[in-house]
């Protein structure tokens, strides 16, 4: 279950796809007030995760070597 994983550990794809699903549910389905609020709060947490990932994003560059994978330092 993806839901068991904390949102803070979500990848951008995981967070954004669940966020899209939540928005679609809220827009298209009649949910109880309690469920709606729970979805909204989860959506807010997912947005925070996505934005955080986008703000902090830094290209990770690795190089394959004979001994495995190492970080690649470029000028």
């Amino acid at each position, binding site marked *: 279950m993806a839901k068991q994983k904390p949102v803070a550990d979500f*990848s*951008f*794809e995981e967070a*954004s796809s669940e*966020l*899209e699903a*939540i*928005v679609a549910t*809220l*827009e298209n389905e009649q*949910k109880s*007030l309690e469920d*709606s*609020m729970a979805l*909204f709060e989860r*959506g*807010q947490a997912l*947005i925070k995760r*996505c*934005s955080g*990932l*986008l703000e902090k*994003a*830094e*290209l*990770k*560059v*690795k*190089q*394959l070597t004979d001994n495995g*994978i190492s970080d*690649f330092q*470029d*000028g």
Partner: protein
Amino acid sequence: MHLIEEYPHSMSQIPLFETTPHWTVTELTRYLRQVLESDSSLQDVWVQGEISNFSRPSSGHLYFTLKDAGSSLRCVVWKTDASRLRLTLQDGMAIEAHGAISVYEVGGQYQLYVNLIKPVGEGALYQEFLRLKALLDAEGLFDPSRKRPLPELPRRIGIITSPTGAALRDMLNTLRRRLPLAEVFIAPSPVQGDEAPARLVVALEILNSKIKPDVILIARGGGSIEDLWAFNDERVVRAVAVSKTPVISGVGHETDFTLTDFAADLRAPTPTAAAELATAITIEDLKYAIGQLQMNLTESIHSSLESRRVDLGNADLQLKQFSPIRRLQSDRQRVDEWGHLVETAIRHKLDLSLLRVQALDQRLVALSPLEVLKRGYAVVKRSKDARLVDSVKKVKRGDELQVRVSDGSFNVNVSGKADG
């Protein structure tokens, strides 16, 4: 006489032993020029030879002599053509030159007016390129139906190129700018030389089996056809075609095509363009999309809450009409009214009691012995024991008695007795 043998028709009307010249030098030279220029096979020739007497005057035109073991040919490259040459000419260089034969009238020299130059061997490579292309094409290796869609948002990007080349730097800069969320795995490989094809194949295999990226960029900066040749190697082309991961090629410049380009799922004109095509969605697009989702989320919850608020308002109105609170309120009023009645009743009762107390008090007062004394009666007590004297039998002669009247008391002695 050589000329006459070569061009018998043109010369046929001139008497062989005519002493007066019929041609000026200019006329003859111009005629020869026309003859050469009218021969289409001389207007589109490839000539192979070695450069000598190379010169590049300030005019920008290039002059040299092309020679081989047996002969030599004057060559000219006009400035506009010279600027398009891909290689730097120098004496001793073996080249293939393409152009048209004509005559330089002032010098009376026929020469080759060159518009293209290739190093020797390029022609042979090109033939090989065409042969292999036809072969692989017939196998269906370049079939458009083989092309796979590229991932919209690649998480992992494999790059196969030289670790020291400008191509890698360009690609990394482009990826860093457009999609810093991605993770890049460089599989370094030489991109030219004898070793290159085998190493490129290994790099493709390792990326496919170990890293499993979402897309692979195979790239190299510009160069001559020999420099790019590894990307026409059959092994490399086949490996690109069977790659499990979609491949974008970015080899050389805009005008360079390699067989790798044909086998790849997408051909980019340059390494930078390959990095751009791999990142169709950029981080700016993502930020915008998240902003939109945020708006949609907020709007949907607001409208959901608002519609509930309206529902709730309606329900509240209905509820109030049947609400026990309403009855409670009327009950409360009744209780208030009762309370008031009770209070009034109690107060009334209290008032009555008070009146009665007052009446009793007056009666008490009326019964008080002091009031009796005021009417002239006296209370007599024996002084020795303060006992009330209400009978003659209680006194004898000589007893001291205390007599109380309304405003005080006095003592007397009994001097005699008489029965009532």
